[in-house]
C-alpha cells in the first residue's frame, strides 16, 4: 500500500509539473528544438528546474540508505554506452521533434488532446511492444568490439 501511495504522489507531482510547465503543449517542445526558427527556451527552464530537486534526492539516498517503503536504491549508473543507447535516442529524438511529445507528456495530454493524443499514444504503445523484438534482432547483428 505504501508503494502505491508513493507512486500516486510521484505521478501527481509529475502530471502537475508537466501541465504547469506547458510541456503538454507541443509547440513549446518543438519551439525549443527549432533553433533555426522562433526559438523558445522554456524547456531548458523545465529541465533545469527538475534536475535541482532530483540531484538533492540522489544525495539524500547516501544518507537514508534505504527507500522509505523498503527494498534498495538503484545501482550506480552503468558506465557502458553501447550502440542501442545512441540508436534508440536518435530514433526517439526524431519522433519527439516530429510530434513534440515524449512519453510523459503524451500520457498527460491524453486527458485533453482529443483523438490526436490517442493516436499518438496507441502508436507509441505499439512501438514499445515491438521494441524487445527489434532489440533482440539488433543484438544478433555482431556488436562492434
Amino acid at each position, binding site marked *: 500500500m505504501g*508503494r502505491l501511495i*508513493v*507512486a500516486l*504522489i510521484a*505521478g*501527481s*507531482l*509529475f*502530471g502537475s*509539473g508537466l*501541465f504547469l*510547465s*506547458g*510541456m*503538454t503543449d*507541443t509547440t*513549446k517542445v518543438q519551439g525549443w*528544438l*527549432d*533553433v533555426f526558427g522562433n526559438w523558445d527556451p*522554456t524547456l531548458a*527552464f523545465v*529541465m533545469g528546474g527538475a534536475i*535541482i*530537486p*532530483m540531484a538533492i*534526492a540522489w544525495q539524500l539516498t547516501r544518507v537514508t540508505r534505504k*527507500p522509505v517503503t523498503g527494498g*534498495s*536504491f*538503484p545501482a550506480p549508473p552503468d*558506465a*557502458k*554506452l553501447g550502440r*542501442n*543507447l*545512441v540508436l534508440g*535516442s*536518435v530514433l*526517439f*529524438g526524431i*519522433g*519527439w*521533434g*516530429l*510530434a513534440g*511529445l515524449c*512519453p510523459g507528456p*503524451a*500520457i498527460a495530454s491524453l*486527458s*485533453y488532446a*482529443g483523438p*490526436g493524443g490517442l*493516436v499518438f499514444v496507441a*502508436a507509441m504503445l505499439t*512501438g*514499445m511492444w*515491438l*521494441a524487445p523484438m527489434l532489440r533482440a534482432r539488433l543484438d544478433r547483428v555482431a556488436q562492434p568490439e
Partner: protein
Amino acid sequence: MEMDWIMGLIGGMLIGLGGAAYLIGNGRIMGASGIIGGLVDGSGHATAAERIVFLAGVLVLPILLTPLFGGVDTHITDNMLVLVAAGLFVGVGTRIANGCTSGHGVCGISRLSLRGMVATVFYILAGGLSVVLFRHILGVI
C-alpha cells in the same frame, strides 16, 4: 514570454519533486518510458499496480488543474500519419535506448550518469534535426 519561463521552472521543480518522491519513497527511477514500457512488454509485471497508479496520477492531475489554471492547447497536429510515425519512433526509440526525457534526462543527468548525458545529447540533436527536416525543408509540420 518570461512568465512561460517562470512557469517552466516551477513546473520543472514539481517534476523533479515527483522523481525525488519516487526515488526516496520506492527506490525507483522515475522514467516515463520505462514505467509504461514495462506494462506493455510484460517486463514490469511484478510492479504493475504501482506503475498504473503512477500513470493515473500523470493523467488525472492535468484534468483536476484545468478548472484552476484554464485549459492548455496542446497544438497537437491533426496529421494522423505524422502522429503514427512519431509515436512509433518514440515508442521504439525510448525502449531501445532504455529511457527518455525523464529517465535519461532528469534522473540521469542529476546523478551525472554518462549514459543519461549521452542519450540526452543524441535525442536533442536528433529532435533538432527532425524539426529542421520536417518543418523547414519538407514543410509537413
